[in-house]
């Protein structure tokens, strides 16, 4: 769809921007909605993964003979049951894909690379029997020294995780095998001259821990390989087509034989894009000739899925005394976990792109080590980089005695300004968001003792990618809209609203469906904040085609030219000299479909190359108890450009949910490791995500600067809200305590230590 179809600024919407009850809501408040673990088949076996007790070890041999003898056991599988998919990095977008690494993440081949890495799986008539059998699998290990920190990974004599892995990417790369998988560098202007010119320089070293997406639903999968080799998979995933491709590649099946049905999904945040158990359930089912279900425990979720990178960062900003940025520079080291692919590239692309600055050098390294392989987590990399950048901008504002929002407005990018990674921004709403924040009552409210206020900004590119939609008209004039994007936060309602807007009918007359891989056109995953934008575009386009059919049917019935029929809010209206024909409702036309040409069904596909970045600014008020180091967010406001809010309730929900995740990351969440590389807090008791009593209401302001790339002006909204909170909370902590924290999380013991030692250990 071209830019000239944009009506986001002028069009008067009837249904877009309203707040109907979501179509799938009833099933979700009554317990009827079926999530991943809720599926079962007759004769189903229970599958369990068998996981490594070592963080780094070579597998010399595996003996499954004793395990196979356990009563009830029907299949035991190891690397020998999977094809050897070659390791090889295929660049894609801001990162890339490595099918061999994906295969080895699911089932270890040469080595186990993190504690909890699966190296076998068992299917049995009971879960207990499967677990017992798992314990009887005999492995001859060559235990290797684990690489458990960035320092260890970069040491001269560091054990190498992947023999033959040479550093890819920009700038002088180390010679020979290296744990540095990739380097990225964006440069512009003259960095030395820039800092020379600066009146003020702020700089700092920052650290963030590995954290998990923390979705409440553990991974689950039911697979059934049938006698003819066809294979059905049910699983909670962000993208069923992705699962289909990965299952085919990793299990060694023709893709055409695989059908994936996405179940309801209990949270993902990026972590349910990759596969972990699906190909294994398929291979177990193939071997046992029975349906197999695998459900991860919470502990397995923490050890064997997700998380996002821990990081070590250095950054500095040089500015003129009037506040103008003249040079920015970073060196970021990100933990990739067991295989290349940390989001350091996206962190580098986003970190200083909200601000104009001619002289820059943004450098980052993607480093493998013996920890779980990272997966996407909501705006991957951007919150980490923004923590460093936004902390430093706050320092700069203090040094220059400037209002932190004014300082950001002074340097903020606008349409036509160049991002650090190359392209120029189109229409964006960063300044509008900053101005809306400055005039918000929260920003002007008084603070009490031991309280501080922090502000931080952030942005995310948002994705376009491929989507398909099919709209069909029922003979009562209602409609069905089908897409392939799992509904992870209310997107069915958004799809139905866009369809209803074009048709001119009540949204309750449109039923939105999420189809399986055999019943809908290809859709890339629900991710990249892309569904309302790209899949929405396909829905609008398909519905417009349906409207053209409806007009044509009316023209046939009236026996007038198509041009003489206009579609007005659910009715065909005769114009251009045929006005005496009057109008005909969608219902009337639908009832006569069989007489006028048969069913009306239209499909559309889109592949928009770009989306339209979303900018957000957060304001956080924090109160710190100096006796205990416990801090509490007492007020929080999210201001963000949505382009156009289709269903404002679920836009607000994204703002609030992203803020809450970011607050958890800032204040409490972190993986804790023992000396052997085992996660010590693999449960929700010790990996503490925010609970209701930790948070205040989270105020939201939806700014709407229409995105010219979408017919209604939509921008993605899902990811941007997690970008600013780390900086916003850290800046609030600085103003509440006088201490600048460079290391997350700012948990009570750390805060207390810092208070007791006058900030020395922060």
């Amino acid at each position: 769809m071209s830019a000239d179809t944009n009506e986001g600024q002028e069009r008067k919407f009837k249904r877009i921007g309203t707040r109907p009850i979501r179509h799938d809501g009833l099933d979700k408040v009554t317990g009827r909605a079926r999530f991943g673990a809720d599926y079962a088949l007759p004769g189903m076996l229970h599958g369990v993964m068998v996981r490594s007790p070592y963080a780094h070890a070579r597998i010399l041999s595996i003996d499954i003979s004793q395990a196979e003898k356990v009563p009830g056991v029907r299949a035991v599988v190891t690397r020998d049951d999977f094809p050897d998919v070659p390791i090889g990095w295929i660049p894609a977008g801001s990162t890339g894909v490595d099918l061999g690494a994906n295969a080895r993440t699911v089932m270890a081949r040469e080595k186990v690379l993190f504690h909890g890495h699966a190296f076998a799986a068992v299917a049995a008539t009971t879960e207990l029997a499967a677990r017992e059998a798992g314990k009887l699998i005999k492995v001859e290990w060559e235990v290797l020294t684990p690489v458990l920190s960035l320092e260890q990974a970069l040491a001269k004599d560091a054990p190498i995780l992947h023999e033959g892995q040479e550093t890819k990417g920009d700038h002088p790369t180390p010679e020979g095998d290296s744990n540095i998988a990739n380097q990225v560098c964006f440069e512009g202007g003259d960095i030395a001259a820039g800092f020379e010119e600066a009146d003020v320089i702020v700089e700092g070293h920052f650290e963030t821990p590995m954290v998990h997406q923390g979705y409440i639903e553990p991974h689950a999968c039911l697979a059934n390989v049938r006698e003819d080799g066809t294979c059905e998979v049910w699983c909670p995933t962000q993208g069923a087509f992705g699962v289909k491709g990965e299952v085919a590649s990793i299990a060694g099946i023709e893709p055409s034989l695989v059908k994936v049905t996405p179940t309801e999904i209990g949270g993902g945040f990026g972590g349910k894009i990759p596969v972990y158990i699906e190909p294994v359930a398929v291979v177990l089912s193939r071997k046992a000739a029975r349906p197999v279900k695998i459900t991860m425990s919470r502990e397995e979720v923490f050890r064997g899925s997700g998380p996002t990178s821990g990081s070590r960062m250095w950054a500095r900003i040089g500015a003129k005394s009037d506040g103008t940025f003249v040079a920015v520079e970073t060196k970021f080291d990100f933990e990739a976990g067991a295989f290349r692919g940390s989001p350091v590239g996206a962190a580098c692309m986003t970190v200083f792109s909200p601000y104009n600055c001619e002289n820059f050098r943004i450098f980052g390294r993607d480093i493998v080590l013996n920890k779980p392989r990272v997966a996407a987590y909501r705006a991957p990399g951007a919150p980490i980089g923004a923590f460093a950048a936004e902390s430093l901008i706050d320092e700069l504002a203090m040094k220059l005695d400037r209002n932190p929002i004014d300082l950001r407005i002074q340097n903020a990018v606008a349409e036509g300004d160049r991002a650090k990674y190359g392209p120029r921004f189109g229409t964006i709403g960063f300044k509008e968001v900053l101005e809306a924040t400055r005039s918000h009552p929260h920003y002007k409210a008084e603070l009490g003792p031991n309280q501080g206020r922090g502000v931080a900004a952030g942005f995310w590119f948002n994705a376009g990618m491929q989507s398909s939609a099919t709209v069909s008209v029922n003979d009562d004039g209602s409609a069905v809209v089908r897409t392939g994007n799992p509904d992870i936060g209310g997107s069915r309602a958004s799809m139905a609203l866009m369809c209803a807007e074009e048709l001119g009918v009540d949204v309750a007359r449109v039923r939105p469906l999420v189809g399986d891989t055999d019943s809908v056109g290809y859709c890339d995953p629900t991710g990249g904040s892309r569904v309302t934008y790209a899949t929405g575009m396909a829905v609008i386009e398909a519905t417009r085609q349906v409207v053209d059919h409806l007009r044509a049917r009316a023209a046939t019935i009236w026996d007038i030219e198509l041009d003489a029929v206009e579609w007005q809010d659910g009715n065909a209206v005769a114009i251009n000299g045929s006005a005496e024909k009057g109008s005909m409702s969608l219902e009337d036309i639908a009832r006569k479909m069989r007489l006028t040409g048969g069913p009306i069904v239209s499909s559309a596909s889109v592949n928009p190359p770009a989306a339209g970045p979303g900018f957000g600014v957060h304001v956080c008020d924090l109160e710190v108890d100096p006796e205990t180091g416990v801090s509490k967010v007492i007020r929080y406001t999210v201001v963000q450009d949505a382009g156009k809010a289709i269903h404002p309730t679920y836009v607000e929900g994204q703002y609030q949910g992203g803020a809450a995740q970011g607050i958890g990351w800032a204040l409490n969440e972190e993986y804790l490791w023992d000396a052997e590389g085992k996660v010590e807090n693999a449960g929700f008791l010790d990996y503490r995500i925010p609970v209701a009593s930790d948070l205040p209401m989270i105020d939201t302001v939806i700014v709407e600067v229409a995105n010219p790339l979408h017919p209604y002006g939509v921008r993605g909204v899902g990811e941007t809200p997690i970008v600013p909170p780390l900086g916003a909370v850290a800046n609030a902590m600085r103003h509440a305590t006088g201490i600048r924290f460079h290391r997350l999380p700012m948990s009570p013991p750390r805060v207390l230590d810092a208070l007791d030692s006058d900030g020395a250990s922060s």
Partner: protein
Amino acid sequence: MAKLRVETTINGEETEFLCSGQDSLLDVLRGPLAMTGTKEGCTTGDCGACSIVLDGRLVPSCLVLAAEAEGRVVETIEGVADGQKLTAVQQQFLEHGALQCGICTPGFIIAAEKLLEKNPDPTEEEARYYLAGNLCRCTGYDKIIRAVLDAAAVRREERA
């Protein structure tokens, strides 16, 4: 090993099932009884997704042995609505959009019903602390708390 036979009452209906001594009540609800509205998020009592009411008390069903249900009264999400009529809590969850993915929703609704039964007019803080045993990763709790407080108001009006 011989199975245990358990007689219990679930959502007002007399029910019997067979279980092993190791099965949790959650296992039996979701497995043999096919009542999958009660969700499993952790099996360690930390997330609240499996909340049920046992003899009038809010409990995580993952920490109750199935055999302990003998002779007791169990209430689950499937029994919350009154026939075809949603409760005020369920209705307010819909009105407020107090769910995104929806996996935590059954547990929250069970817990919120219990809160309002014990305390028909909770403050925001009381609601937040009562529901602190239920984890939600999507919403930031804002709309959940608003839904519960509004449901309390609706219930008070209905009962006035």
